[in-house]
């Protein structure tokens, strides 16, 4: 393959930027929080918090320590009656109908404890009895689902932290809840245990569970969450799907930003492209569209590709393509692509390279989108 034999890269419009095809009647939210306020004495720990979580979503609730995450979660779990506002789980009011909500949710508190002097199976059998579950097979099914079969006869005291956390998740699943509410599920866990918990959450989502989890570790959430809500000083600063939030922020910034200087066009001047100087630093310098509108930092993404052979030879295939902000080559077949778009865009890039005969070894989208959103919408103070 030579560099002159390729068709220029012209992907379709990213799906995120296309008009969304909306269903006529969206399903009612699994979790609906409306105007939630809570006061301890004269201190407002929650201030008019409102958000929805759609069924089947993994919703990440982010905020620094003391932001009010646990207070919100305790109100959702029927453990706290808020000063004002309401929480509805699957249509049931958590304050007014706690018994029904408790049947629907599986709640794992932050730093939840376990009974140490019984076995894993006895632990789950106890909770199965406490939930008044009529079938004995449920305990076996949950043990299998959470991969605790080999440990079922071990004393809980002898389990590692990760396994205890897994046991806690197993406990929350016993009564087959529609909604899982997990407060800091991966706190204090080692990397392996975190990965195991993450994989388990993804598996549970596949089973149709709606999962609401809180954390202040962004990478932990960015791997699994479909939507997020960011809480700061008791106020919800933003909530929704990660991509949508990024777009919204981009629009906000572009509408408020002053016009930036227009960058010179690239040599082959493909229409609709922007100039991206490629350098060793990897920084994507140009931040404007051909029309002069700035491209918000929040919408610029980075994709790491690894190809067989010389990566320098591949660069012209990508440079100047729609949505491409810049490309740089690295050692060992590494290519770093700066672009604007979503998952659909990445898929188009991959398809284009493969159909062009490029030996693609790996594709690694960047994962720091959530971090960028968090830093942009929060002020960083707690008081």
């Amino acid at each position: 393959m030579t560099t002159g034999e390729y068709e220029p890269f012209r992907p379709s419009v990213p799906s995120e930027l296309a008009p969304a095809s909306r269903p006529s009647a969206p399903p009612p939210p699994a979790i609906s929080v409306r105007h939630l306020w809570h006061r301890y004495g004269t201190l407002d720990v929650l201030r008019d918090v409102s958000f929805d979580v759609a069924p089947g979503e993994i919703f990440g609730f982010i905020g620094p320590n003391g932001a009010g995450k646990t207070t919100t979660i305790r109100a959702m779990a029927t453990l706290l009656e808020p000063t004002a506002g309401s929480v509805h789980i699957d249509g049931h009011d958590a304050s007014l109908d706690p018994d029904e909500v408790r049947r629907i949710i599986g709640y794992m508190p932050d730093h939840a404890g376990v009974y140490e002097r019984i076995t894993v199976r006895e632990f789950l059998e106890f909770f199965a009895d406490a939930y008044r579950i009529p079938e004995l097979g449920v305990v076996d099914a949950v043990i299998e689902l959470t991969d605790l079969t080999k440990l079922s006869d071990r004393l809980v005291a002898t389990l590692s932290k990760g396994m205890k956390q897994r046991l806690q998740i197993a406990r929350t699943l016993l009564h087959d809840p529609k909604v899982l509410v997990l407060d800091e599920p991966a706190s204090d866990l080692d990397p392996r245990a975190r990965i195991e918990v993450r994989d388990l959450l993804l598996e549970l989502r596949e089973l149709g569970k709606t999962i609401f989890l809180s954390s202040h570790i962004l990478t932990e959430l960015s791997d699994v969450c479909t939507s997020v809500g960011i809480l700061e000083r008791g106020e919800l600063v933003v909530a929704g799907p990660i991509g949508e939030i990024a777009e919204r922020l981009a629009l906000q910034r572009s509408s408020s930003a002053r016009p930036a200087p227009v960058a010179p066009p690239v040599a082959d001047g493909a229409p609709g492209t922007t100039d991206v100087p490629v350098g060793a630093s990897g920084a994507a310098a140009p931040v404007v569209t051909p029309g002069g509108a700035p491209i918000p930092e929040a919408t610029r993404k980075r994709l790491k590709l690894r190809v067989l052979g010389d990566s320098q030879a591949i660069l012209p295939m990508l440079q100047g393509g729609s949505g491409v902000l810049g490309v740089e080559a690295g050692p060992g077949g590494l290519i770093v692509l700066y672009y604007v778009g979503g998952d659909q865009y990445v898929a188009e890039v991959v398809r284009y390279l493969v159909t062009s005969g490029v030996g693609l070894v790996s594709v690694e989208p960047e994962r720091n989108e959530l971090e960028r959103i968090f830093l942009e919408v929060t002020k960083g103070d707690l008081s």
Partner: protein
Amino acid sequence: MSAQTGVASIPPPPASVRGLARARMGFSRLLADPNPVWMRELKAAARLQRTPVVLAVTTGMMTLLVCSVGGIASIDAEPAKVGVWLYHTFFSLAFALVAWMGPAMAATGIAAERSGGTWEALELTGLGAAAIARGKFLGALTYVTMYLVMLAPVGALPFLFGGVTALEVVLAFVVLGGIAVLSVTFGLAMSSKFSSPALAILVTLLVSIPASIAAYAGLGVGLSFAANSLWHGVAAGPPVWLPTAYARADFGIEYLTLLVLVPAVLVVLPAWLFHEITVANMAAPSDDRSTRLRVWTLVAGPFMTVTCVASGVALNDPSWFIAGEMGLVMTYLFVGFLFAGEPLAPSRRVEARWERERAGAGKRFLGPGVMRACTLLLLLVLGSFAALLAAAALTLRTPSDRDGVLALGGYAAAFLVFVAGFAAWTRARSRSNGVPRVLLLGVLFLAFVGPWIAMAIAGIFESSERALLVAAPSPLYAFHLRKVIASGTSDAEVAVLAGSVAAVSWAVIGLGLFALASGRVEQRVAEERALRAGLEAPSGSSA
């Protein structure tokens, strides 16, 4: 199906099954589908390696102690006396074991769930605070019973020596069982208030050790003399007199009243109260923590009244009426203390539940709300004292005895009206439920002691009889009043006038505070509703 036992559950009996058959089915259900918390407690206890060691050491030490006492006693005493000594020694030690170990064992129960981070998971299972409390109670009681069973052979030794019958030994174990129930429920009630097991054990022991010593000395040694004067077969002095009284006393109205009714009241009512306190403390603040305690009050008040009336009438003695009055005063002071911490009004959650259940006025009256609670206290105080004083008026023939009992009871009832009003008023003005209780204790202390201090100062300037009038606002003045009435001296009229003015003043102040509290509660509830409505409005802002 119980996953822990693997036994198929028995469905609840249909409504058509009643009486003994229903109770039998309920017991079968309990065996087939036991309390899950109890089962887990047993499994965990069985794995505790120190349990058999502690049991063996305790039994060994007790055996050595009883044998040593027996050995020393048998040097110059006949076997029957040795048997009696061993009987009192063993059951005194067993009493200490149960009265100290029972609360300590139970005190860890709920506090350990809180400190171990398992409480919320347990709470959300829907098992309910009452079922969890029952499981914890059964777990701790089983543990204490294990000790009693291990000690049973040692307890049977006195019977072999003579002086006590096998029935008396068995009865002593039954009494010990009653004390164990009381001890464990007390420990759980304390545990339900704490988040740290260590602190729960410490506070529980700090209360239970002095209380058990006082009970041993007062109800054991002290009451044995009273029992001896009634039934000569019961020895005066030895502490373990109650089991022997059951076997030796003549059956009659006194037996039924003093050996059945009074002990039942002393065990069942406190044990039930402790259980209800445990359940209330375990429930969430927005749940209904009041109704069960209110039902206890509604039953305990009349039951206490009946017991006091029955013992007074049966013995036809003013002392028993006065003891009854004191019992009622103590009970209602405690109830006043309890109600001072009531919520102002039912929470939204409770109101929603009432709406769903279409709760009637009776159920709502027994629900959360300080005004409802204090109204109930007022009604019970007036009803109980009216019944007791009527019984005294009809039973006691000597005018001075009768008037003394009436004066004491009248003053006590008037002061309790004040307590109900003050509890309602302080709660209506306070944002927390702890402050009104502290204030009530402070006011009680001042009311009881303050006038006597004033009297002591006044005594410097006045004659002692006139100075005593200064103490009339103290409820303790009622005892002086009774003494003056009994003596029939010329000062009686003035003393009665002073006492009456003080009692009426207490009642009027109480009713005034009650009326003020009612208005204040309404105002605060309206303010809270307005605040919530404001915050929940789409443009809600902090008020």
